[in-house]
């Protein structure tokens, strides 16, 4: 053990806030639905959507948790243009643990998203192979220009010590 340093522990509670420079847009939702192969008419057919009580087309639910549209960040050396904490833990490899999404309502084309990211936890464990792991949890809360709660995304990043048993 020893991956959970005071420096890492001090990061709990750190926040970053991003507000998108423009609305999500219907085209963005249609593009995403084509990319993942989801032909749900709620994303493309306003009459169908209204027949089911919605104000018009909505975006695929998980898009808000997957897109970097709101971040407005330049791509890094590997092409990534989204939020990161820039955490670097020496002598470890980084893997994704998982995600938990909570949705308040369907995202609409005119929603302008604000994403508030926060480091919520950092813990240390040993995996079944005997390797030390640092587990960092973050939560992104997505709201719109009127303060409506849209969604929450809790994700876990795991740093696994190299060269362990």
């Amino acid at each position, binding site marked *: 053990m020893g991956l959970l340093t005071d420096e890492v522990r001090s990061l709990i509670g750190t926040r970053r806030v991003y507000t998108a420079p423009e609305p999500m847009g219907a085209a963005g939702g249609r593009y995403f639905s084509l990319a993942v192969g989801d032909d749900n008419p709620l994303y493309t057919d306003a009459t169908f959507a209204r027949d089911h009580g919605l104000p018009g087309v*909505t975006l*695929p*639910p998980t898009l808000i948790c997957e897109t970097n549209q709101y971040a407005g960040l330049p791509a890094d050396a590997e*092409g990534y243009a989204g939020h990161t904490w820039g955490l670097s833990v020496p002598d470890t490899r980084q893997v994704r643990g998982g*995600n*938990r999404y909570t*949705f308040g309502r*369907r995202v609409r084309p005119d929603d302008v998203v604000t994403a508030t990211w926060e480091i919520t936890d950092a813990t240390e464990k040993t995996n079944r192979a005997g390797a030390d792991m640092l587990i960092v949890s973050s939560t992104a809360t997505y709201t719109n220009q009127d303060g409506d709660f849209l969604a929450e995304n809790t994700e876990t990043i795991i740093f696994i010590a190299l060269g362990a048993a």
Partner: protein
Amino acid sequence: MSTPTSPPAVGQPVPPLERTITLTDMVAYAGATWDWHQLHYDPAYVAEKRLPGPVVDGQVFGALLVEMLQDWLGPDSFVQTIDFTFRNLMFAGETVRCEGQVVAVSEDAVEVAMSATILGSDGADDRFAVRPASARVLLGRADGTGRP
């Protein structure tokens, strides 16, 4: 897409969703999500990392699981929560099968346990992409109720 004629029952399987994800799909997904990390499309980059091919973005499994649930329950349903744990990487050209089973039912919601399995070239199960996964889906309404 249609609404089921009878309410879900505990133990009932969810109609599975199977999808082959090509490099073209992955490039489209990278564009649609504003995520241009080379890991997801650049053969030279992944070769340098000693990976067998471009890596499917793990978050796409969330999209596929939601698609499976909505295709099953129809437009008058709303996925309120979903969680999923990653197990193995999936590479360009591979096929994944999402599946699930009802674990709880109430008057206005259904809870489902799910997984996503990567198939081998012979079509047999090879390894899990996602497991466990679960979701709570509101019934009888196309939209959510605000912050749960």
